[in-house]
């Protein structure tokens, strides 16, 4: 029996459990592949301070309707030749896992898993062309050895010329299904454009006559969040022991100050005192029981929140731009919350709301308080074209984590739970208990964090940590209040318009009644009615 025990490669594991990575079925596999590649492209561009220009292509393959070729190309900095095979051909390989820094990718699994899936289903490994500035482009074709979790290079060729000065192109052929509608690649591209108004996206899919182009609305590359040290509150005992063993600090107080953020001399002193230890202890000699005491002391200490420099929220202005660019609403409200912390990880929540008045008309008030009715322009109906639903549908929630849209598992997502537990009735929307509010509107929720707690490796939903739910609710409430003011004002105008019509309709009948009873002359009646109208309107101002 002992003889059969052996080590299992991570790629074997994920090949067998590919639903864990979002490759449950051919439709989702297509989306996941494109998503992972676009995420990487965006991250690469932003890290290099380049405004992303990204091309996404889905190509049908003649005679094979269950296979597609996809290509994702960016104008990023490119990847040095030696790293290409590992980045694209080895699972759990990447730059982002160990860094406490906000980025789209974080595990180093996604793009290699896409290549692995492609190879598993069609036998063909991924192709990569990448070019670093002032160097030649290289063209790789990889084949992955899943037993060893290692890439094999089947082609490695320098290209004499490539049309981009720098950038990367990833291509693979996979078993896939291409469909439009909610949760589709179309939807993903559209939502990505909303949350990334600084990016230009060009998208071509089967059935399109020409590519769909999402122009950038902003020319500012989002600031890159700084890398931070761990915050003491987020470190568990086991991790603390590991850090004690690996630290370069000689003394316990130095360890606390140097290896964590937000720990100054005073805080370090109080923690060590609380733990009953000495400041001059050697970290590597702290026993387990002592570490335990230290860990408990940390929880009791008052330590300020982690620095927010590591976070790069989209920002209220950019969210507004994104929503305005991609929706045709009557009102927009946004809110970026101050950063907060869960399990020692700083995060920041942003919410945007786009709301359209129900009905086809719009009432306009001029300077004199005169109200006129204006016909609204017609909206499109294709639902990836038009993010706003009908006035009697549940409101759509666009969920983003580090600017990446989350397209599935809406019901189990913390964002959805927060939206359901917010009292939208207070803000003028209809809502039944336990449901999303109803209206022709869309709610954008974005979480920026150095570590986003997804509920599964497929990165589809946010785990409902209390701290996160609370922040999402607060943001929704803040944006909701602005919306509420607007809706109430709209209702007031519309009711005033109706009331003035009312007066015009019924005042003449007051005149007729008086005329009949008092046998008035028609002119007397008219005068009386005019007098009354003047008196009445003088009492009503908006």
């Amino acid at each position, binding site marked *: 029996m002992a003889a059969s025990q052996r080590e299992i490669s991570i790629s074997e594991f994920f090949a067998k459990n590919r639903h864990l990575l979002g490759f449950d079925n051919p439709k989702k596999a297509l989306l996941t592949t494109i998503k992972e590649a676009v995420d990487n492209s965006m991250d690469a561009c932003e890290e290099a301070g380049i405004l992303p220009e990204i091309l996404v292509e889905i190509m049908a393959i003649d005679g094979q309707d269950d296979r597609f070729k996809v290509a994702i190309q960016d104008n990023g900095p490119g990847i040095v030749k030696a790293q290409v095979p590992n980045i694209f051909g080895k699972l759990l390989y990447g730059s982002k896992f160990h860094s406490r820094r906000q980025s789209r990718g974080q595990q180093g699994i996604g793009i290699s898993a896409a290549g692995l899936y492609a190879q598993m289903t069609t036998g063909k490994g991924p192709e990569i062309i990448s070019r670093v500035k002032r160097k030649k482009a290289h063209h790789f074709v990889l084949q992955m050895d899943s037993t060893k979790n290692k890439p094999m290079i089947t082609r490695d060729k320098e290209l004499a010329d490539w049309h981009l000065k720098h950038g990367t192109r990833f291509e693979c052929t996979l078993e896939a299904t291409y469909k439009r509608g909610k949760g589709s690649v179309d939807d993903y591209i559209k939502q990505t454009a909303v949350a990334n108004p600084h990016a230009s996206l060009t998208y071509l899919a089967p059935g399109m006559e020409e590519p769909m182009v999402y122009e950038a609305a902003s020319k500012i590359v989002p600031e890159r969040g700084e890398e931070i040290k761990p915050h003491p509150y987020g470190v568990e005992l086991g991790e603390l022991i590991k850090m004690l063993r690996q630290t370069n600090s000689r003394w316990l107080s130095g360890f606390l100050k140097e290896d964590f953020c937000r720990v100054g001399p005073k805080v370090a002193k109080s923690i060590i005192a609380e733990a009953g230890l000495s400041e001059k202890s050697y970290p590597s000699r702290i026993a387990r029981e002592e570490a335990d005491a230290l860990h408990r002391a940390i929880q009791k200490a008052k330590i300020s929140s982690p620095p927010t420099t590591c976070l790069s929220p989209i920002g209220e202005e950019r969210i507004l731009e994104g929503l305005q660019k991609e929706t045709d609403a009557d009102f927009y409200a946004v809110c970026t919350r101050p950063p907060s912390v869960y399990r020692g990880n700083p995060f920041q929540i942003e919410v945007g709301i786009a709301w359209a008045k129900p009905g086809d008309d719009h009432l306009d008030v001029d300077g004199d308080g005169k109200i006129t009715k204006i016909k609204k322009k017609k909206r499109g109906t294709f639902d990836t074209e038009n993010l706003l639903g009908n006035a009697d549908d549940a409101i759509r929630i666009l969920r983003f984590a580090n600017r990446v849209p989350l397209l599935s598992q809406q019901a189990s997502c913390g964002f959805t739970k927060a939206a359901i537990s917010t009292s939208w009735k207070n803000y003028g929307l209809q809502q039944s208990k336990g449901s999303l509010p109803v209206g022709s509107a869309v709610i954008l929720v974005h979480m920026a964090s150095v570590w986003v707690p997804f509920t599964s490796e497929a990165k589809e939903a946010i785990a409902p940590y209390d701290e996160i739910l609370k922040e999402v609710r607060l943001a929704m409430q803040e944006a909701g209040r602005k919306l509420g003011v607007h809706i109430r004002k709209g209702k007031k105008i519309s009711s005033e318009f109706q*009331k*003035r019509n*009312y*007066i015009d*309709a*019924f*005042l*003449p*009948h*007051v005149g*007729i*009644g*008086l005329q*009949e*009873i*008092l046998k*008035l002359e028609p002119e007397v009646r008219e*005068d*009386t009615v005019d*007098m*009354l109208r*003047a*008196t*009445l309107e003088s*009492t*009503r101002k908006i």
Partner: protein
Amino acid sequence: MAAKKKKKVTKKVTKKKFTPEKVRKAGPSKRKGKNDLSAVAIESIKDVALDVFNVANSGELPEMVMPQRNLKNVTYDKKTGYFEMAGNMKTRRLDVNSVKTFAQTLRLMSLAKDMVADDDFATKREAYYVSKNWGDAKFGEQRESDSVLDDIEGMFSLKDITREILRFRPEEHGGSVVGALTVIDHDPETGEAIRSDCAAMGSGAYTIPSSVDHLGFETTADFIIAIETGGMFQRLNHHRYWRNSNCILVEMSGVPTRATRRFTRRLSQDLKLPVYVFVDCDPYGICNIYRTLKVGSGAAAHVNKDFCVPNATFMGVTPQDIIDFQLEDATHPLLPVDIKRAKDALKNDPFFKAHPKWVKAIKQMLKMGVRAEQQAFAKWGLNFVIEEYLPTKIKDAKNFLP
């Protein structure tokens, strides 16, 4: 001539001794004559309109004032004997919210003025249809015109002008009457007197008209029984109960109409007859039918004075009757709506609150948790009510619930 006939018939069949002195007579109501009141009504309508006209032309917003119509705006004093209006008024000022109702009120007032002048009338339904010629100001539903009519009635009740004077009639069926009573009406066209002998209706009955103040009465009866259901009325009539016990039977068919209330009041007051009320033992029979007959209602506070029968007393069916006559297995459980009604009465109704005996009886019903219908006596035989129940009860009439 008809009077002669009646006398003859009565004489022949009554088993009681009959002396001519016992005949009681009453002429038309002592209230102001219809013609006087009609003139007052027209003037009052003009006054209200003129006031609106003048205020409007002075650059102010005109108002109409009318009494609030609900149980909170009535007081009850055993001595007065009916729900009196407490005097709370509501003021309808012309503004955007009231402009439609304001216009409709004036137009219905105009209709009333014409009807008074022409001695015509309109049912509430007809009034609703008249508005169909008013364009935008027409009523969408009869509920709306009924409400405006109620307001008009309230407004003019302050000048002692009733809905009847304003010539608006409800659609409702009047009550029926049989027994030792002759009603003296007149032909509306010829003015000639018409005598209806309520002892000579065969298996039919005299129907109370919608306006009763012009009627005269002659009777030899000793008392009146006001009955809730048509079925019980038919039974007593079929067996000529009124003849054998020398009384008048009035069928209310549920909550009595204003005409039935006024008719019974006039019999009770002008002919000085006691009125015994015989209804189902349930909160509706007690708190709606009996209470409204005896002291009037909150909604009609402005007319209760003339439209109730303060000296009516409650013969049955009482909760105690259920026990005394062993009706337990012919009862039905009180429904939530019954319980709510009974509790409301105990909490809010000034009449019941003023009578400890009623508080006790209603609490007894709530405790028993059941209601019983008049028909429940049929359990003991169809005519048990005639042979046992009524004689037993009436013997002890002085102890009826107040």
